[in-house]
């Protein structure tokens, strides 16, 4: 597991789920379908990515394909970092 996935997991454990539940969380599991993320949760995720990875996010990029699982989010962060 890379550092990006680790930091996402740590963030989820601190903010969304009990730490023991993080171990059971699948990397492709949908945040939306498992009910983990609501409208505040989406903002928290956006804020976390901007703050922790120094990435500027446009509303048009807040799509399920970029934000709806650990793997989606990690891939999105890598793509944005490559562009910088």
């Amino acid at each position, binding site marked *: 597991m890379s550092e990006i996935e680790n930091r996402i997991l740590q963030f989820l454990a601190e903010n969304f789920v009990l730490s023991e539940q993080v171990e059971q969380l699948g990397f492709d599991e949908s945040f939306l379908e498992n009910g983990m993320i609501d409208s*505040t949760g989406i903002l928290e995720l956006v804020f976390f990515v901007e703050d922790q990875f120094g990435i500027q996010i446009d509303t048009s990029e807040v799509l399920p394909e970029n934000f709806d699982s650990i793997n989606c989010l990690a891939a999105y962060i890598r793509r944005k970092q490559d562009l910088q």
Partner: protein
Amino acid sequence: MSILSDAMQIAVEEVSRISEWIKNNVFQEFKRRGGVIGVSGGIDSAVVLALSARALENNKVIALFMPEKDSSPDSQALAAEVAAQFGVELVINEISPTLTALGCYDYMAEAIKQIYPDYESNQDKVKLVLPDNLLEKPSLNVFSLVLMRNGRPELRKILSPHAYLGIVAASNMKQRVRMLSLYYHAEKHNYAVIGTANKNEHDQGFFVKYGDGGADLQPIRHLYKSQVYQLARYLGVPQGIIQRTPTTDTYSAGSTQEEFYFRVPFDLLDKIWLGMNRGMSADTIAKDLDLTVEQVRRVIADLMQKKRTTEYLRTIPLSLSS
């Protein structure tokens, strides 16, 4: 006409069924002598007022209009028009002084300044919005704050979680002060508070817990917004109200309900939802409404997500069994 357009039609008999239900619950079940309705100049409160006047007799109904400084200037004239149309007494209770005393506007400004440090409440207007039409783009429900000031282009920024929660907590004070006022007038007359939530608002969590969600009965909670419009026409609600775009009437820049929360025109949203509730496949719904299957799936996913994440709002206080 499509299958879903046809299925969305309600019979005019629904007016009598709801009126009887209001009458039985207010008089028999709750032993109250009338009803108070918070009117906003919008379609839902106009329909509930008309139904209540019919059910309880118009001299046993009070229409309470509770504007505050961010309310639209059009609202009062429309509230007065609908009260006059149905022969109901209109009581006006300006709630800005109460909200000022509670710190609502200061809290709101403090939260807005986290996003726009040069915000000036006396010259700027703001509103919360979700991304544009969900039918066009599959973007998630990420709230942005729009700031409008004369002479400069509109600004739009994604909210920080802290600012978002601060703005929502402050703006929800408006609905909670209104509930307090409704119950004051209700108890003074031994009346019930009759709520105005429709199915869209209730099931998708577009209401404030213990705010506009606080009422003794909710006579149109089973109706899709499109059906509320049908009832409005049956009941003779003034055209100015029927033609008005539904707004939140909460933020100074006057956001519509579609841009603030629902993201899809009610006409389509309701039909997709009805199809889903009737067990129709996304493919069948798409064909019936001339949409793509992907668009229908996107709207259904959004509906389910809103229902799931707002369950807390609809839950009564939990307790242990003895």
